[in-house]
């Protein structure tokens, strides 16, 4: 099955991003496809390489980049939500790209299921 993923909350503040990561990893391990993950609302804060979590904690941003590289996932950050929150091309971690909300609607149409992780 093909899943689209929507993440609406920022890292560390809220569990949504962790849950989305674990769901995506489990889906891929079971042979499903996750062609695109869309970051919206405070979820755009998952995309900045400027974050430096404490050493004994998980690195959420790096985790997304690695997952995307290993499995060829398209990590899309909403441009309107990103600009509001100071997320621009120059701060993006590897694997992320900024684009429009149309990319979210598109994966909603294309995928068998769209799964939202939010508050």
């Amino acid at each position, binding site marked *: 099955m093909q899943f689209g993923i*929507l993440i609406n909350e920022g890292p560390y503040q809220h569990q949504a991003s962790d849950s989305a990561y674990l769901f995506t990893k489990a889906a891929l391990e079971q042979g499903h496809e996750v062609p695109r993950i869309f970051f919206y609302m405070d979820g755009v804060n998952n995309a900045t390489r400027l974050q430096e979590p404490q050493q004994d904690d998980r690195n959420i941003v790096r985790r997304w980049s690695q997952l995307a590289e290993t499995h060829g996932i398209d990590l899309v950050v909403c441009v309107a939500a990103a600009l509001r929150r100071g997320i621009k091309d120059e701060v993006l971690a590897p694997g992320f790209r900024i684009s*429009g*909300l149309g990319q*979210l*609607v598109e994966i*909603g149409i*294309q995928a068998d299921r769209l799964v939202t992780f*939010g508050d």
Partner: protein
Amino acid sequence: MSDEFEDDFSGEIKRFMFVNRKAPHGTIYALESLEVVLISAAFDQDVSLAFLDDGVFQLRKGQNANVLEMKNFAPTYRALEGYDIEKLYVERESLEARGMTADDLVVPVEVVDRARMAELMADQDVVMSF
């Protein structure tokens, strides 16, 4: 953006429901939900909106966001018709719990009870909840 998309997926129409559960100005959920709704209209999908819990306040008449120095986006709900988005469902129980009726809302809506709302959600291909 949509041109390229339509070439790839022309003809496929899915049922999209946007579920609004939060009050309009305490958080950004209502405003950014509305932004997705407006974009979805460009994709010629079968779009509906649901309002429940504190989300019913998003449609409340007489809002004055200016005193909060917030963007006043309530009039946008009245413009949805111009985007061919005409299916607005409001949960009866949520209205009643807040002492409201359909007369308190800025747009004409279909008031449905909780069981009917569940059926409507079950009928969708894509449900996004904000």
